């Protein structure tokens, strides 16, 4: 798992010589760019969601980390390094988005290819901890969490340190790797007691500088960049349904931490 997250956060730097952040290569990147992702994206939709948006993120990240302590780090390292700093949140945004977007696109495949892959038995075993006996009921819960979210964001299936699974909603540029920046609440409306308690709890954790060992297995983008081009402003539900059919489960299976 650690290897996976490192490779995802890969940057075009091998030596200590500084290079600029570039759009990473996807496994089928060239094919996707020409034909789109069958069953999910047209070539234009892929261009907006990946090629252009990732370029936008990496270029901004380069501009903001030039000549700073973060200039030799990968987006993954930058997001962890800046997550706690109140004045570095714009840098954090681009790092976290670049990482999440790569994480999301890394797991996609053509519908015909994706249908050949299956979640592993280990995955199903873990799913039982979420009280889901089959994949379909889990699918409904996962996609509902994504669809009912107001605004931009990400929904992750994460593995907690005790090896159980959880569906985690991250608004905007939230990250699954650090509890302080999960951004699971929306305080723009009313604040209920649950949210208040949740915040209090996180504050306590942060005060004691508790560590977070949560790792994501599956993620879906709820950012407009990922669906507006192909599905329109109101097409989120259609996009999510199609997304489910294009998950390359072999990638997800590899992300599960095996002892």
């Amino acid at each position, binding site marked *: 798992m650690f290897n996976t997250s490192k490779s995802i956060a890969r940057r075009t730097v091998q030596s200590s010589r500084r290079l600029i952040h570039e759009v990473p290569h996807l496994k089928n990147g060239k094919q996707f760019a020409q034909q789109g992702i069958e069953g999910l994206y047209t070539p234009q939709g892929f261009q907006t969601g990946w090629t252009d948006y990732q370029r936008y993120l990496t270029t901004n990240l380069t501009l903001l980390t030039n000549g700073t302590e973060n200039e030799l780090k990968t987006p993954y390292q930058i997001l962890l390094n800046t997550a706690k700093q109140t004045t570095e949140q714009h840098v954090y945004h681009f790092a976290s988005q670049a990482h999440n977007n790569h994480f999301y696109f890394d797991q996609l495949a053509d519908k015909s290819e994706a249908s050949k892959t299956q979640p592993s038995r280990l995955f199903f075993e873990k799913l039982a901890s979420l009280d889901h006996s089959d994949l379909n009921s889990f699918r409904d819960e996962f996609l509902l969490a994504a669809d009912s979210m107001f605004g931009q964001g990400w929904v992750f299936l994460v593995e907690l340190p005790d090896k159980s699974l959880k569906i985690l909603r991250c608004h905007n*540029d939230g990250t699954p790797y650090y509890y302080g920046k999960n951004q699971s609440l929306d305080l*723009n409306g009313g604040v209920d007691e649950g949210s208040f308690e949740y915040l209090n709890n996180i504050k306590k954790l942060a005060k004691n500088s508790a560590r977070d060992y949560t790792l994501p297995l599956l993620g879906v983008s709820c950012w407009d960049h990922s669906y507006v081009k192909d599905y329109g402003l109101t097409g989120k539900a259609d996009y999510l349904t199609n997304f489910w059919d294009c998950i390359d489960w072999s990638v997800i299976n590899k992300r599960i931490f095996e002892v």
Partner: protein
Amino acid sequence: MLKNGIRIKKSGLSLRQVRNFSFQLPSISTLDQVKAANSDYDGLFKNSTVKQIWYERGQHLLDGLNQTMEDHGLDKTGTDLQTIITGLISKPQLYGVYSYSASLYTLQFFLESLKPNNTSEISTPTADTLLKTPALNEYTNVPTNPVLVDWINQLFGSIDEFRTLLLNSARGIKGDGYVWLVAKLTVSGKTENTKYIYKELSVTNTYNAGVVDDGLRSGQVTKLKGQKQARLDNLRKRADELSQLEGSSTQNTELQAEIAQLEDDINLKELGTVEEAEDITVYANKKLVPLLAIDASPRNYLLDYGVFGKNKYLDNLWESIDWDVVAKRMPPRSKQFFSID
């Protein structure tokens, strides 16, 4: 939403089936003209985008609002969006209703502040534009109302500076959000001779379904804290009573643990940030009256301007601001008087 969406897909029912009274999509004349003429919204949106932003998404929000209100059994007759918003902002259990109504309200407010213009062009910038410095003073659209101009000049220095502040705030928004120009209302004096004073203009941001006047909202954390304190006092009292009954030697360990936990929580909050303190006091006797809203959410520029088009979109947006509407929304300004006694 998706639950509904899935159900709808399976049964082929229309979501728009609503019983009794339901909210209708408000009519915005500039947009209706664009729709009728099947033309572009000059200088800002293409025709198809206008349809998506207002007629489709607006309807989508409306459907959501009607649906959720019905689900919660709320009475829609005789209410309007603003009443719903102010009524529900402190009711987190109705988060859905609140979010739909607030999103719709701000979207309408934003679109009503605009008019088509023929100075700017819709274009799709490339990745290179990320390196370009936003132009400082390449704009033609300026407010004409002398009171407004004077007010802006006094509070922000100049129209240039005001524009920079407004657009920079919009550039800073990463997800969904609006930038607002608001007039601050200060209430002073006691009930018999209350004075309403508008002295300041300011620029403020809201995110997702946030609304400008969140005076009601900001009290919530304090209220919750108060509840917690009350619970702690109650527990302490009970512990005292118990120990008096059973003799001072015995202590109810369960109760003590709970008290310690609560004390811990409250003490943690006592070390609050400066921001929290400001939050509690800043809106105590203030009200914000919105004059202008600018939508910086990605959906507005992704369709016409592409991923790299945010700056271009915002520049065009400035050109499209209808200053007459802004001036009409402006409350009477109370000038500051300096008297030497």
